[in-house]
């Protein structure tokens, strides 16, 4: 009925881990504990009702039919009818309560994990691949939805059914219970083996499905190259190979389960044969009644079915446990850059001072910055230049407190950024990344990312401030144009304009820019340049520069090389000095002339 869960050996939880996971789940489920208990109570009632049926048949046969007492028979029938109705009512309730509990839990889990991810600093996002984080929030949580919708109910009901059925059968006839239990060890052993084998087979299937889908996707996305080189046959041959591998793994997984289901089918009938044979003998001896034998044959399935269900659920539950464990690890991760207790607001204006900082990316061996000091006055423009990987982008990020230095400090207006409130920090210092990143929604929504409370007028004003009013007016729905996936409807230049307008909306005192390395189409390029010009006017600017023209416009230039400030001064000063910068500038010019 459901897709099978699978769990790799590394993911399997230890007993202690499992206990912690269960404990935390219960803690998170606290707000809807009442619903949970109600669900549990309902499952109890329906389980008891399921067992009551065969008992009432027994009562009807033994007291009514065999004793030739029609009234007693009618009473049995009446109670049976009542039990059926109760089962129905509580059956509905158990679904609702259980689903409400489970889905509410998943909702709380989603919110908690997401909030925690958002609190993390950039270092966390450097460490964890985006794809993995997205999978945690989606596939991992969704994999539990099935468990919540069906699994939990079945798990509870199956467990309870085994316990109740055993108690009941023993009170009916301990002799027949022993007979029924004779089959149980075989059944349990078979179930355990089956669950192991099928888990292994499932993991193989999962890998092959993944490989097959990749081959498929690659074939479709690269079809032009394949056709251009006339390699259709070869590509199809390779795909067929991967496809047949997948088929083989499917076939193996069926073979693994075939004998098990055959055995289960046989076991059920064989147990009835035992009950009839031995039960009949006991009836002849007068140890049990015929009704008991009949009830036993009817109740046998209550004992066998749950074992089977539990074994099928086992892997699903285990993989859910593994997923929860990973999610809790995220919840436990401490953000490195966080607001200090007793943080104060930054002043509206001031000098940005970097004082003797050392910085190493977590997990990296070498320092990205070493004993760097630099200061930027109010309204000053500083250009950071240097070879790739020398640390200029890192320095820019530290100046906006996307990371904290390990040694030294970055301060603004005399206040250490570490001691500033996050909200004032983001109002004073704004980072404009290389490429304009857009979110789903309209252009207006995308501006509001910068300030969610901004009015339409303020947004218009921000667009006007960078001189892009006319440009956006030409779009079909103006600022209400849906940008579609990742802003695919807008050009790269337009996306950049949105990014600049965001910064204008915040109206910060300090701008940190990472200049784009790639070129835009000439028309928009000029527009973006113009917008940038207007945005920079009157603000303190730190720019990671890749173009000579940008560098020449700066008040000061810092050459970052080998994690340190190698040179500092104005363009003219540094050219005169004849050091690294002057060499760089010459190289820049040369590469242009050679064209």
């Amino acid at each position: 009925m459901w897709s099978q869960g699978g769990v790799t050996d590394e993911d399997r939880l230890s007993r202690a881990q499992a206990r912690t996971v269960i404990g935390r789940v219960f803690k998170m489920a606290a707000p809807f504990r009442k619903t949970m208990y109600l669900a549990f109570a309902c499952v109890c009632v329906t389980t008891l009702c399921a067992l009551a049926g065969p008992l009432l048949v027994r009562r009807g046969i033994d007291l009514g039919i065999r004793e030739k007492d029609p009234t007693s028979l009618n009473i049995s029938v009446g109670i049976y009818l009542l039990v059926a109705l109760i089962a129905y009512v509580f059956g509905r309730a158990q679904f609702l309560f259980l689903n409400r509990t489970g889905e509410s839990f998943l909702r709380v889990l989603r919110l908690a994990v997401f909030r925690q991810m958002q609190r993390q600093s950039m270092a966390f996002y450097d460490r964890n691949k985006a794809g993995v984080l997205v999978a945690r929030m989606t596939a991992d949580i969704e994999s539990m939805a099935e468990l919540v919708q069906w699994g939990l109910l079945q798990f509870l009901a199956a467990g309870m059914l085994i316990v109740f059925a055993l108690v009941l059968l023993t009170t009916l006839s301990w002799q027949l219970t022993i007979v029924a239990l004779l089959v149980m060890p075989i059944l349990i052993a078979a179930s355990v083996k089956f669950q192991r084998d099928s888990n292994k087979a499932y993991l193989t299937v999962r890998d092959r499905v993944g490989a097959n889908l990749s081959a498929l996707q690659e074939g479709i996305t690269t079809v032009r190259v394949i056709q251009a080189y006339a390699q259709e046959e070869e590509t199809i041959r390779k795909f067929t190979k991967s496809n047949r591998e997948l088929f083989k793994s499917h076939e193996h997984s069926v073979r693994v389960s075939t004998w098990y289901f055959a055995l289960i089918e046989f076991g059920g009938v064989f147990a009835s044969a035992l009950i009839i044979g031995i039960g009949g003998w006991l009836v002849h001896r007068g140890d049990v009644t015929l009704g008991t034998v009949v009830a036993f044959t009817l109740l046998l399935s209550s004992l066998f079915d749950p074992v089977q269900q539990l074994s099928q659920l086992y892997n699903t539950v285990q993989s859910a446990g593994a997923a929860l464990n990973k999610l809790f690890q995220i919840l436990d991760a401490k953000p490195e850059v966080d607001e200090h207790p007793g943080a104060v607001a930054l002043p509206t204006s001031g000098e940005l001072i970097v004082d003797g900082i050392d910085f190493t990316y977590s997990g990296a061996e070498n320092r990205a910055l070493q004993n760097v000091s630099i200061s930027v006055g109010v309204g000053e423009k500083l250009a950071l230049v240097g070879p790739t990987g020398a640390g200029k982008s890192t320095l820019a990020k530290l100046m906006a407190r996307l990371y904290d230095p390990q040694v030294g400090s970055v301060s603004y207006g005399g206040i250490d950024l570490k001691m500033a409130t996050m909200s004032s920090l983001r109002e004073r210092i704004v980072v404009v990344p290389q490429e304009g990143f857009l979110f789903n929604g309209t252009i207006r929504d995308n501006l509001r990312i910068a300030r969610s409370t901004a009015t339409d007028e303020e947004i218009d004003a921000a667009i006007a401030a960078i001189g892009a009013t006319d440009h956006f007016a030409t779009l079909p729905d103006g600022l209400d144009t849906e940008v579609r996936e990742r802003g695919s409807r807008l050009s790269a230049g337009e996306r950049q304009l949105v990014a600049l307008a965001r910064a204008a909306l915040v109206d910060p005192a300090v701008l940190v820019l990472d200049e784009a390395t790639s070129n835009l189409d000439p028309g928009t390029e000029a527009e973006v340049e113009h917008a940038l010009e207007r945005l920079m006017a009157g603000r303190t600017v730190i720019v990671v520069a890749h173009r000579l023209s940008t560098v020449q416009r700066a008040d000061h230039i810092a050459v970052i090389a080998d994690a340190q400030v190698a040179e500092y001064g104005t363009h003219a000063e540094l050219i005169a000095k004849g050091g690294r910068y002057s060499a760089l500038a010459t190289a820049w010019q040369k590469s242009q002339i050679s064209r």
Partner: protein
Amino acid sequence: MTSIESDTEVAARLEFEETQRSEGWRLLRAALQMQRRNLLLGALVGILWASFKVAVPQMTKYAINDGIEKNGPLLRWALIIGGLGVLTGVLSGMRRYIAFRESRWAETLFRERLFSHVLNLHVGYHDKAQTGQLMSRASSDLMQIQSFIVMIPITLSNVIQIFAVTAILFITDPILAIVALIPLPFVNLSARRFSHRIHPASIAVQAEQAQLANVVEESISGVRVVKGFGAEQVQFEKLEKEADDILRESMKAARIRSSFMPAIDVLPALGLVAVLGVGGHRVLNGDLTIGDLVAFNVYLTLLIWPLRNIGMIVALGQRAAAALVRINEVMSTPSEIIDPVQPKTLPLQTAGPVGDVKFDKVVFGYNPEFPVLRNFSMEIRGGESIAIVGATGSGKSTVTRLLLRFYDTQSGHVFLDGIDVRKLKLSDLRKHIGVVFEDTVLFNDSVRNNIAFAKPDAGEEEIERAAKLSGAHDFVLQLPNGYKTVIGERGFSLSGGQRQRIAIARAIVANPRVLVLDDATSAVDPSKEGEIRDAMKTVMSGRTTIVIAHRPGTIALADRVILLDEGKVAAIGTHDELVGSNARYREVLASMSAPEDEKVN
């Protein structure tokens, strides 16, 4: 769960679905024809299984009546029942194996047919088709079909089981049979309605999950923006809304489940109540034996699963039919670019210089109403190199695509070595044209296999020679496993310039008559570009080469330059001639290098 469609909308939708469905059923029947024999075997096993399964309660009845009540040969009955257990066990295993194997086999074959069809479809089709759509045809749609086929043997045995059980019940006691069976058709009905209603509900849940995934994805990819502006709360509120939506839709689905599942459980119980009540009194009156009564009970429970399954398979079948209709949309699309019936062959290389390319009054537009090339004519002699220069959107890359016959012209002709490209076998034509595309596509495979793509059996020396010429050899040796390093999306990631150099090596190995470099060195570091240019001269010598480039240095590689403007050849000449004589050429060059000049100022 009331729908909000109007009556006419519902009618139109139903009618549309009906025509699609009948088409889908036809396709499914055709597909299953191929596996007729094994499916029949599965059905036979299923029928045998059903008959033995039905015999079990019958034997139980005899055992109780004869063995227990009348002190008959108890052991014999127990052994018979046990023997039936062995038979049903073996048969149910077989049935399961056949059902799954055949359904997976059908899925496997379908996927291969689909893949090879898609791979051979003309490029114009792929321009419009979305990868995601094609992917779901080959994955989730095929899964729908598989989960339907797997049910076929089980369903057949279920049908037999239902008939057999009903017959036995009527033979034993017609009146009791009627009473007991009354609630059971409702099980089937409920199961059917349940499947119908739960499907759209789970689709709705999936849709909400996808929306949540979007928010998560953009928040993580755009984390710099989120952090930079302190927009965590904004994104959190978006996520909270999506999480609430999921909860709401999930609870809708839960309500559907809660209104059907317990009913499906309780209806058979009502049958059992009826058997005990009516049947009990009939035993008391002497119309029925206790054994019969017990057998009735067991038979009723035997009916529950088959009835549920049949209810579900109708819905499964409809979904499978819909999936087949979607698959058929792809499969029935013919490729518009195919081999000619009587293909001509290209003249042999020994007969003289090869690689003559000629465009004769070509008119072409991706949308015929907006032609990109209008009356475009050009001639390139074998061994000559030519640069095509033009503003963005002037149709430079289109020339390449027409030469490869990715598209056919609307009028006019394209010739390779004097033969109309439409008269050549596609593989013949394309093997002789090596293109390095603007957006470099590499495969998830080793560097070696990527370079040897056009010639899988190429020797190591040949591959290394190509890599050296394209300037890839040095960095390839520095990769963790050298030429065996797996690159591409899931492998080792290379820089844009490195990718382009691998793509150039790939074209070199193909040893084509015509080499096309479509902005092939745009991402290569300028200092390296000079090196590659030198190497390219070796590759280009004696080989027809078409260069589409923006950098003046690359344009200078060519013997002649063609200026493409508004879909026509505006001027032809050497670079220096055109710079001297053509104002439009200067303009186009300036616009292409404007941002670069800006850097120098």
